[in-house]
């Protein structure tokens, strides 16, 4: 089994705010991340797929095609967007990095060809904070 990773980037605004809570409770839980006018991040997205190497090409999968799939189904929807307002698959969800990583998996997995499987979505919100989701 070989694991292949493609790194992509997107820049987005978001806030951590539970609409069922009072503003005070949101601030107590999320601090500055609850700013009602949003804040933002340069997100780094690592998409890892797994499978076996093709004997003819030496590839697990053409990484240029993987990049195009990620751009079409993920980056077009997230880059330079407001994650709370602009993204249909994040509506009614808390815009945490955890939920975003899971949602990216769910959006991406159906568009990968049969011969490869999604192994991991690793999403950096900042250089010091990242989440990994393995589809479980």
């Amino acid at each position, binding site marked *: 089994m070989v694991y292949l990773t493609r790194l992509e980037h997107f*820049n987005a*605004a978001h806030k951590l705010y539970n609409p069922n809570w009072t503003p005070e409770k949101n601030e107590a839980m999320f601090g500055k991340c609850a700013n009602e006018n*949003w*804040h*933002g*991040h340069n997100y780094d997205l690592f998409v890892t797929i797994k499978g076996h190497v093709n004997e003819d090409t030496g590839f697990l999968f053409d990484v240029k095609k993987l990049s195009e799939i990620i751009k079409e189904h993920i980056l077009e929807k997230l880059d330079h*967007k*407001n994650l709370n307002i602009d993204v249909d698959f994040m509506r009614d969800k808390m815009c945490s990095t955890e939920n975003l990583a899971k949602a990216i998996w769910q959006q991406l997995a159906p568009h990968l060809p049969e011969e490869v499987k999604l192994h991991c979505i690793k999403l950096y919100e*900042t250089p010091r904070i990242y989440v990994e989701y393995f589809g479980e």
Partner: protein
Amino acid sequence: MQNRVSVFRHEHFNAAHRLYNPAWTDDKNDAVFGKCNNPSFHGHNYELIVKVTGVPDAATGYVIDLKQLSDLVKKEVHERFDHKNLNLDTEEFKQLNPTAENIAIVIYHLLRPHIDADKDVQIRLYETPRNFVEYPA
């Protein structure tokens, strides 16, 4: 000849912003600023590098106490901009387009009065790992 040394402090802040000119039509803003004109905003992890240049003090060996510089940046920059919407939440960008260029100029003028005049100050601001600006140029 005295030894001039540059010291650097690296800080960061995370903020939302939108690039647009309110005097222009939507079409013109889209044409010039593209995706950066999203009316719902987008955001960045900004990386800020403050460069201070001078002759090390004979008694301390410091050009500037980097802990004091860090405290200054936290007070003048981080508290104003971190986890904020630059267009909506800040006085500095109420009528100024928050491009990386303008943010660097604003940060310079926020810090300059608090650093001794015999030191040179330069701001480098990364909007993304590949796009950064310096002021003064």
